[in-house]
């Protein structure tokens, strides 16, 4: 028996996924199921606390205040970067 799942993914991943499905001639559902099983197996091989999540999610305010702002370096940072 089959069932349906849904979730949001990036446009980039969707494009890659669709191109792969087209090139390989495999059904999208088959690829998704295999990918999920591979992912779950890989994660089960590793203890939870040693995995470094590749993606961090922040909100827009944090982006505006931290990521997108240029700030002057601290004296400690300047000293560190000039040490030999």
């Amino acid at each position, binding site marked *: 028996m089959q069932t349906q799942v849904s979730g949001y993914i*990036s*446009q*980039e991943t969707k494009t890659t996924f669709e191109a792969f499905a087209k090139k390989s001639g495999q059904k999208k559902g088959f690829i998704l199921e295999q990918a999920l099983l591979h992912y779950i197996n*890989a994660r089960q091989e*590793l*203890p*939870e*606390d*040693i*995995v*470094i*999540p*590749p*993606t*961090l*999610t*922040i*909100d*827009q305010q*944090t*982006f505006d205040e*931290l*990521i997108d*702002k*240029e*700030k*002057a*370096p*601290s004296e*400690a*940072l*300047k000293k*560190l*970067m*000039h*040490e030999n």
Partner: protein
Amino acid sequence: MKIEIRKLHKNDDRSSFSSGDIEIDRFFVNFAGQNQFKHKIGTTYVACMPKSNRPLGYATVSIGSINIENIKKKEFSKLPNYPIPILRLARLGVDQNYQKKGLAKMLLRHILFLALELKDKVGCVGVVVDAKKEALSFYEALGFEILPITFGELGIKPTPQTMFLSIKTIQKALK
């Protein structure tokens, strides 16, 4: 004391590393190798005496990205519609016998230069660290700021504080 920073080698002797933090030691002794050589999900840089295979300190990094959630449509155009690349410093530890000798700073400096290199070669907007409570002041003095995240924290307990330092700030510090 002459110290070199280099990538972890397979034949490095990690067995006796002891920083005084069980989690930092367990990761380095048991997982840093497979993390780098088998799974390719992170790279560890070590501080060693020249020609020694006994690391005195280490820093593990991996490439990561930042996503922005709930972008308001009217402001969407000014925000990047793709993941923003960062370098993530997930672990940093120094052996108890070599603490307070500047090894942590040397390792961090190496990572900041690595981020600058990545910026030029593949793009990188900054460095994210997962700082333990006792290391917060160390990173704050260098200009790292608390980064509130809604997803992507490490699975360590207690949860470390995620902090961010912009690549523009790192670059300015060189001038």
